[in-house]
Structures are given as C-alpha cells and as structure tokens.
C-alpha cells in the first residue's frame, strides 16, 4: 500500500512539474510579457525596462525558469495585477466555491449513476437497460455548456425557479451542479451497468441465489461490492475531467469559483493568477486520483498484492 501511494505520489509530482513547465513555456511564447500587460499600451520604455528588471524578465530564460520553479515550491507567484493582491490569496479565496460545486456535482452523479447503472445492469437487454444505456450515451455526448444555457433559459428566465447566475445561496448551486453532473452521471451509469452485468454472470451470484438470499441481498451484498472496483477506477480517472468541466460551467453561470477566475485571468493575461490557479488545480486533480487509487486498493485485494510486488 505504501509503495502504491509512493509510486502514485511520484507520478503526481512529475505531472505537476510537467504542467507548471508547460504553463511557463506558453507564457513565454505568448505575445507581450508581464510588464507590457501590467503597464498597458501607454507605458514608456523606461517604465517597461524598470518593471522587467523588477520582475526578473531581463534574466536569461533558464534563470527565469529556475526562479519560477522556486516560486512554485514556495507557492509565491507574485501579485495579480488585476486584483493587486498576491495571486495565491486570490486563488484560495475562490477555491471553496469550486470545491462546493464539484463535490455537489460528483455526489449527484455518483448517486444517480450507481442507481441507474444497477437498474440497467441487473437485467442486460431488458427495456430498462436499453432505455438507460441509450439515454446515458446521449447525455454523455451532449455539450454541457449549452445544456447550462438551456437550463438558464427554461428554469431561470421562463419558470423563474432558480437564479440564472452568481453564487452564494443554495438556489444558485442547483443549476450549475446539475449541469456539471449530467455527463458524469451518464459515465458512472454506463460503467456501473457494464460491471454489474458482468458480475451477474459470476458463479458466486448463483451460489448466493441458491442459498435463498433475496434479490436485494444478492444485488447489495454480492453484486454491488464487486462491481464497485471498475467504477471507482474510472471515476477516479475522470475526476480531472469533472474539474475541467467545472471551468466551463462556472463561466456559464458566473459561479464565483476558480474556473471562471481562470478564464478571466487567461483573457486578461494575468499571468501570476494563471500560474497559481493551474498549480492548485493540478494538485487537486492529483490528490483526487491518489484518493481513488487508495480506495481501490482497499476494495480490491488484488491491487494491494500487485503493489507489494
């Protein structure tokens, strides 16, 4: 187990290094540097030179890169020129809203997806199965940002049930969370369906039935637990996609989280903010993946054994 976590952590660290390096390269390639962005088009050459010197932009690229890696390690990305505050403070201020949104969406998706998947998978080929599978396939492909706008059109503008944009109250959370949960629900349902359908053919299910257990006991006690392993694997791998989806959905609903802030920061070329947000998101995604691996190893003795070797 320790070795599994260790190996995963190492890959995670390399991933974070890769992501921050990619962001560094993109920022160097982007037209205009931090100094021109911060001072605007009216800046004089002297002002530009002075700010470049202050930010270390007149150093060789390699020195800048090492400085930047140092900044990442100390989580000090400098000031956001739009907010006039340290970038990390701005990012942490936005963080809780994103956590609320993604966790709510993940809970909705896992609950609904598991129920739908079990209903479909317990009788493969049945009407319920075909209905769930078809709907799930469609929902997985549907563009979430457009669904979000349609939700605003119907539930906010026409029926006036929920507010269309912003955050703060529980009402604000409903539409973005449901929108974000839709493709994920479909994914969980499809994976669960496949896993349950396969487990149903196992001999221990037949044994459980012939012992005289009720169908509910068989499903809950024997089938579901054994079907959870592939579900946890895929959900764990896809949590990153959920975070990525949140970036777009937050923008649609003007949800005051990390994602909408990142999109704005990219648009305004607020490099410090972009770097801080990317690192935080990367760390979150890796921690989530790690958590999924640990849960999986708990559920499946085979993984634990493999890791020991």
């Amino acid at each position, binding site marked *: 187990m320790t070795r599994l976590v260790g190996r995963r952590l190492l*890959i*995670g660290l*390399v*991933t974070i290094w*890769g*992501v921050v390096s*990619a*962001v560094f390269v*993109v*920022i160097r*390639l*982007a*037209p205009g540097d931090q100094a021109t962005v911060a001072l605007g088009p009216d800046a004089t050459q002297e002002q530009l030179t002075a700010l470049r010197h202050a930010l270390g932009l007149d150093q060789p690229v390699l020195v800048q890169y090492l400085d930047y890696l140092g900044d990442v390690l100390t989580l000090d990305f400098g000031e956001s020129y739009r907010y006039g505050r340290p970038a990390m403070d701005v990012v942490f201020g936005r963080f809780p809203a994103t956590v609320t949104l993604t966790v709510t969406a993940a809970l909705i998706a896992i609950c609904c997806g598991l129920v739908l998947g079990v209903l479909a998978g317990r009788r493969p080929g049945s009407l319920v199965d075909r209905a769930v599978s078809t709907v799930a*396939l*469609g929902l*997985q*492909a*549907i*563009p979430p*940002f*457009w669904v979000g*706008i*349609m939700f*605003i*059109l119907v539930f906010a*503008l026409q029926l006036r049930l929920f507010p269309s944009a912003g955050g703060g109250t529980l009402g604000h959370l409903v539409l973005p969370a449901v929108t974000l949960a839709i493709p994920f629900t479909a994914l969980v349902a499809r994976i669960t369906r496949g896993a349950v359908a396969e487990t149903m053919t196992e001999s221990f299910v037949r044994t459980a039935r012939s012992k005289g257990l009720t169908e509910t006991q068989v499903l809950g006690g024997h089938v579901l637990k054994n079907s959870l392993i592939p579900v946890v694997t895929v959900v764990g*791998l896809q949590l*990153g*996609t959920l*975070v*990525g*989806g949140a*970036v*777009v959905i937050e*923008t649609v609903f003007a949800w005051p989280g990390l994602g909408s802030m*990142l*999109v704005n920061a*990219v*648009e305004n*070329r607020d490099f410090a903010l*972009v770097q801080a947000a*990317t690192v935080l*998101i*990367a760390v979150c*995604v*890796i921690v989530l*993946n790690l958590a999924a691996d640990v849960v999986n190893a708990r559920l499946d003795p085979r993984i634990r054994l493999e890791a020991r070797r």
Partner: protein
Amino acid sequence: MSETAVLTAPTATRRRPLAAVPYVIIGIYLLAALFGPLVIDFDPVATSVTDRLLPPGSATGSGTALLGTDGVGRDVLAQVVHGARTSFVIGIAVVLITATVGIALGAVAGYFGRFPDLVISRLIDIMMAFPGILLAIIIAGLLDRGPLVVIIALSIGGWVGFARLSRGIAMSVRERDWVDAARTMGVSTPATLTRHVVPFLAGSVIALATIELASAVLAEAALSFLNLGLPPDVVSWGQSIAGGREYLATAWWITVFPGAALTILVICVGLIGDRLTRRFTRKRD
C-alpha cells in the same frame, strides 16, 4: 460467449433500421459543411442594424432568415452552416494529428517494450492526470488566436487515448506468429511495425477516432464559447452560442439553433463511435 456474440450480431443489426439514422444525419452535416457555404453566403464581420434580432422566418434585407438573425443582424442559418464547416475542419485536423502521434508512440511502446515503453507509459500517465480542456484553455487563450493554435491546443492532450489503445494492441500482436516470421525473415523493424503490426490497429483506431472527433468538435466549441478559441472572423458554433447569451430572454434562437446543431452532431458521432467500439473491441481489460 464471444462466439455467440459474433453469431447473433448480424441479425441484431438487420432488425434495427433506426441504426442508419446517425449515419444519415452525419451525411447531411457533411453535405452542409461541404456545399452549404457555396449556396449560403455569409460575411462574419458584416452587420445590418435594421435586421437585428429578427425571429425565425422573418424577411430581411437579403431574403428570408429561416432561423432568425442575431444581435448584429447576421443570419443564424448561415452561421449554423458555416460553423459546421469550421467544426469539421478543426475536428478532423485534430483527430488526424492526434491519431498519427498516438499510434506512432503507442506502437513503438507496445512493440519494443522495455525503455521506450517505460518513457511513453509514464508520459501517458502524466497526460491522463491533467484535464486536457484546461491545458487547451491556457494554450489557446494565451497565444495569438487562430485556427492553427486551436488545433495544436486540442491536440496536445488528445493523442493519449490513441497511444494507450495502440500500445495495448501492439503488445499482443507482437507475440503473433506472422510477426515472428517477419522478424526471422529479416524484415526491417520499421517495415515490420508498419506492415505487420499497425494494420491490426485499424478497426479499434477508427472507433476511437470517431469518439475523439466528437470530443474535438465539442472542445473547439467550448473554447470558442469562452472567447478563447477562434478569432471573431471565423464562424464557429461556440461563438454563435456565446453571442446569443445576452439576448437569451428575448431572442432565444441565436443560442438554441447553433447549440442544437452542435448537440445533434456530437450525439450522432458519439453513437456511431460507441457502436464501432463495441464491434472492434475484443474483451481485453
């Protein structure tokens, strides 16, 4: 169990005439993307103040706007048709690039094993851990805007799926007799790879390419929707959807029609991809 599946498959398809529907719809989209722009003129930067926000079916200065007009008086139908072309061009370019890179890396990793496999597998692990759309947002948003940048931004994360798939198949094909035979006969390694290994990837790769096409089209629309993708002089469904947001309460058609066009296309491509995947994927993992 796999044998019964093979035996029953043809009858199952014959009993379902609805199976052809996605193909027909995609055919219509392709025709619209190919020939539509020749029939329907559209100037993305031209505006017409008198034709602003007209509902579907209204008469405009230049004919009837079947799907209405947007906030600056541009025809929505023309945007849907021209946007289809943009979506296909970007989507197909991304899939071609990612498939080529992914198959090459995956086949090399799977065939050679050892060190190349170690490097490529770790690279795949790293790419899998970070959401591709985020990387695309940062790359496309910070660099100069244009179709090429969008294609590159979407390709950077897209090759991983192809690489994983190709690696798995190459690993199993490597052990087959005809590959051994080729090796014994002294066929060069590149020729063995291209002639005796890569052809066996075709079915699964086509299935995956279909799914990846759907996600590339979707990702491009999302980028353009966020105003971080294509420049304003290129028509894109994502931009049309974003442009209609401020008129959502009064002129729903600006957002609804391009979005519906996108949704239907992506669902149909996804349906076909799912069907192909089920046909070509043997039970492996």
